[in-house]
């Protein structure tokens, strides 16, 4: 159920989920948020492979180790970055990276964010303020994002309006109530994010012939709040 941890993977290649050898388009989204908010759960819910992780070394100052020419003795910590993979109809593969929410990981965070289409920021109503730091980082990076509030059993049930006000969200930023353990709710969160990313992209002068897609079907019913 957890990451592949023991044994040499080369010894048992059947455990490795290989990509089909085709011209797939690979893309990534970030799943970001404070400690214990449900990042891994959401990725696991949607991923077709057992969630994997890489150990990324950081110095105590938060710089990626690659930046430290000639300072091998500098104290480093490692942080696990977990990720999952979801193959979509249309020859697409979506990678979801769970990224740590603390400011001291910002350089690592930026490195993972490069090339990402957007971020899903997770929040918990019992501690909304814990998500502020990651929202600032996402905004600084210029990544479009949506906020998914995971509903924990003993959490106060605020209305969407109250939550928006607490989080000081831009009117166009989607906010959804989510349960990261449920596939439908997790997919709805990604759909709301993808719609929001699309809204922020300039319309094309002429459609690209090879990559053009049929008109999108009507949006599936979702928990997304109505947006202007």
């Amino acid at each position, binding site marked *: 159920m957890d990451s592949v941890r023991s044994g040499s993977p080369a010894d048992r290649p059947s455990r490795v989920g290989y990509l089909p*050898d085709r011209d797939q388009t690979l893309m990534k989204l970030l799943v970001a948020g404070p400690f214990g908010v449900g990042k891994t759960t959401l990725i696991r819910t949607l991923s077709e492979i057992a969630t994997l992780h890489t150990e990324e070394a950081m110095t105590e100052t938060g710089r990626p180790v690659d930046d430290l020419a000639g300072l091998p003795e500098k104290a480093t910590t490692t942080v696990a970055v977990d990720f999952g993979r979801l193959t979509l109809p249309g020859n697409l593969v979506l990678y979801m990276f769970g990224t740590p929410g603390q400011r001291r990981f910002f350089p690592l965070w930026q490195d993972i964010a490069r090339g990402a289409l957007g971020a899903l920021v997770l929040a918990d109503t019992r501690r909304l303020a814990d998500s502020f730091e990651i929202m600032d980082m996402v905004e600084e990076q210029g990544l479009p994002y949506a906020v998914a509030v995971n509903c924990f059993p003993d959490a106060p049930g605020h209305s969407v309006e109250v939550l928006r006000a607490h989080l000081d969200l831009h009117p166009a930023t989607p906010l959804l109530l989510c349960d990261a353990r449920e596939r439908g709710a997790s997919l709805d969160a990604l759909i709301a994010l993808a719609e929001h990313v699309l809204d922020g992209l300039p319309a094309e002068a002429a459609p690209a012939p090879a990559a053009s897609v049929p008109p999108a079907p009507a949006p599936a019913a979702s928990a997304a709040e109505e947006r202007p």
Partner: protein
Amino acid sequence: MTAVPRRRMVPAYLATGGRTRPGTAGFDRLTVLFADRAEPPRELEPEHHRLWELLRPGALTVVEAAAHLRLPVSATVFLAADLVEAGCLRARAPIPRAQQTDRSIVERLLVGLRALR
């Protein structure tokens, strides 16, 4: 205890600190790696051989290969670049067709996600 001098303390694939290495610039976490049939030259590190063996049955992204080998992404990129240089690995960008625009990619993502709902 051994008196035999070691070639170096830190294997080359881990000693990536700050140096630029030709051939790694285009690599990303999502670069797709395919093993070619040619076996890696013997003089490469065991880690190079592990990466090539891992990729023999099929393709993986850099980040998946790193996770399976339990190596940092940066080290995996160095190994992959060496193997590409040695002619036993091919790498391709995450987005294969150059004409794809951001908009068309996100539109396809949205269609794909809705189809799963």
